[in-house]
């Protein structure tokens, strides 16, 4: 397993957190148990000491006879096992002591003696006698606010230590082994959870631009992974589509450029096969020039569109008088219309319509649309342009004036009485190089990019463009542009 893999990281974190939890739990357990066991020993020592103290100071007691063991047994019927008892006088000289001490004395520290003289109890753990630590309690017996005796009771801590050692041993073995088991389990879980991810990786790796129709198989269960796969598949679909568009586009573009190239090459080659008159040469050169101009137009349009795609073209937006621009364009286009005996007219219902836009581009938009109309209308037909303001439909439940200013559009309709566009082609006419009738369009000139450029200009102005058309009756191109600058956010 790779050290940087997600599986390793997940397992590592899992084990780390579990380790911290287990260690702190074990520490807490050990500490509280140790404290409670020690307190237990101390309490026992204290109660015994208090008992001895009260017996020894009682005048009726039989405590002062014999050894301490005998005295305890006779006076209180007590046989304390494992407790060492020794009684000292107020100056620290050892008096009686229990039999189990034999000839050993319980040590008394200076600190304990000092405390005792003040009437305070001292607990101490001594590790100097034998192998096992002793818990020694030094208990001063106070009579009439005088320390008369000091009772020392000690108990071995062997049992306590044993229990704690055992617990420690259990913990030191069980915690790491739990962690090892947990890490194995964690790895297994991580592996199981991440297996679909591996599958996705493998499929995704196999997908190249050549086989974008492939998809990752979604699992039956709807979970996070299946959502990821869905997202992936959607992304591949989008890629597939844009790749296909790109292929279509480059194939269209190359076709569009191949035709003038074929003409140039063919005409020149035929010309060069033998000596010609200068008139023939001139004709060929003129024809060649035409094709070269057409190619330059295509290349320039393409360059502009690709610049627009990458956002390199900045619109020079300012307050423009749309009515004025339109009137100018109409006058300019009238000459072209006359050569085809077409009637070109324009109506606008408002005096002057101002919008926030790029005058140069808007002029180009009108020219392209009108030129398009002229191209596809037979002699004797007409082209009509309508410019009008459009109000959005009133929102129900709101007073009329709300939002009215904001949602205003200017609507430009360029309609012709031309050949029309079939329903199935209407959506595609704004695509680059799409031509309804290839032969006719080339004869009319143009790069096949005019409407794509229109669409770009309209969209750059936050507007929309559409077409309504009926075959053999004519087409209407409808452009809607927002009237007011939309909140100055660009």
């Amino acid at each position: 397993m790779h050290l940087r893999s997600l599986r390793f990281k997940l397992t590592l974190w899992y084990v780390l957190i579990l380790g911290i939890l287990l260690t702190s739990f074990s520490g807490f357990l050990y500490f509280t148990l140790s404290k409670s066991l020690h307190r237990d020993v101390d309490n026992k020592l204290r109660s015994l000491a208090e008992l001895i103290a009260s017996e020894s100071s009682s005048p009726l007691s039989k405590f002062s006879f014999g050894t301490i063991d005998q005295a305890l047994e006779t006076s209180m019927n007590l046989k304390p096992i494992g407790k060492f008892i020794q009684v000292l006088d107020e100056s620290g000289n050892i008096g009686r002591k229990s039999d189990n001490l034999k000839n050993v004395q319980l040590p008394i520290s200076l600190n304990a003696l000092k405390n005792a003289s003040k009437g305070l109890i001292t607990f101490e753990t001594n590790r100097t006698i034998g192998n096992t630590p002793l818990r020694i309690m030094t208990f001063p017996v106070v009579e009439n606010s005088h320390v008369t005796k000091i009772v020392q009771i000690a108990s071995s801590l062997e049992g306590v230590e044993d229990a704690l050692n055992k617990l420690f041993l259990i913990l030191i073995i069980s915690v790491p082994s739990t962690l090892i088991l947990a890490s194995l389990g964690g790895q297994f879980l991580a592996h199981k959870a991440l297996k679909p991810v591996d599958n996705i990786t493998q499929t995704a790796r196999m997908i190249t631009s050549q086989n974008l129709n492939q998809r990752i198989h979604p699992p039956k269960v709807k979970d996070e992974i299946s959502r990821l796969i869905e997202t992936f598949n959607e992304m591949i679909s989008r890629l597939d589509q844009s790749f296909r568009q790109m292929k279509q586009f480059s194939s269209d573009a190359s076709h569009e450029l191949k035709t003038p190239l074929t003409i140039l090459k063919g005409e020149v080659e035929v010309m060069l096969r033998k000596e010609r008159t200068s008139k023939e040469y001139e004709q060929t050169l003129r024809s060649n020039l035409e094709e070269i101009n057409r190619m330059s137009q295509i290349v320039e349009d393409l360059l502009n569109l690709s610049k627009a795609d990458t956002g390199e073209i900045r619109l020079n937006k300012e307050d423009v008088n749309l009515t004025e621009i339109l009137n100018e364009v109409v006058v300019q286009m009238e000459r072209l219309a006359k050569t085809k005996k077409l009637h070109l007219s324009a109506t606008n219902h408002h005096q002057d319509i101002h919008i926030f836009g790029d005058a140069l581009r808007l002029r180009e938009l009108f020219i392209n649309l009108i030129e398009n109309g002229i191209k596809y209308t037979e002699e004797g037909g007409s082209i009509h342009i309508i410019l009008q303001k459009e109000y959005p439909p009133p929102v129900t439940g709101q007073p009329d004036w709300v939002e009215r200013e904001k949602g205003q559009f200017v609507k430009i309709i360029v309609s012709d009485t031309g050949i029309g566009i079939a329903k199935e082609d209407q959506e595609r006419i704004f695509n680059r190089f799409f031509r309804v009738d290839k032969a006719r369009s080339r004869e009319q000139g143009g790069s096949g990019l005019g409407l794509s450029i229109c669409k770009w200009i309209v969209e750059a102005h936050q507007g929309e463009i559409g077409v309504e058309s009926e075959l053999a009756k004519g087409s209407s191109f409808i452009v809607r542009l927002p009237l007011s600058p939309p909140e100055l956010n660009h």
Partner: protein
Amino acid sequence: MRILVIEDEKKVANFIKKGLEEEHYAVDNAYDGETGLYMAEVNDYDLIVLDLMIPKIDGLEVLKRIRGNRNNVPILVLTARDTVGDIVRGLDAGCDDYLTKPFEFLEFLARIRALLRRERIDKEPILKIADLTLSLVTHKVMRGGKEIELTGKEYSLLEYFMRNPGKVLTRTMISEHVWDYHFDSMTNVVDVYVNYVRRKIDKGFEPKLIHTIRGVGYILSADKSA
């Protein structure tokens, strides 16, 4: 040899016509699939040059319909799309050869010569009868070691005769294969040209090769009794 060029792009069609005519072919142009199909059905062409992207009836469809009529005329397809799929579709639909645009005009001419040669049993680029030879590549005509100068029309006529030796050729057949559709068949132009050619290749040579079949037409043959 009469060739039909079905190509919608007028300038392409024009230079093809011009180039082919200078090689002594008779050329008709059709600018859309419908006209092309009609002309291919009505006239007897020796070869058809077909662009695949043409209006009204698509090039592939034209190809299929021509073959559907049991017309085995050699067809050279021109296409701007050079993907394998397009070429395979074209060949499978029954075209004999293809060229992608833009093409070399020399290669175009060579392919046309190759396609026309396929009709003949021997594949030599030189037609021969008795001691008369005609080179299809250089257009040189020789008889008895002497070069014979012919005009374009005379060359076309002789080529047609030499491609069909020993066969009776009617005036209609001659006019259909040597002249394009602007030819007015009511005149005696065919006879005039046959006499021009006869004077150039038979005068001062033996045996005589071009014979008149009275009331029918002409025959090219080295055999006197024919």
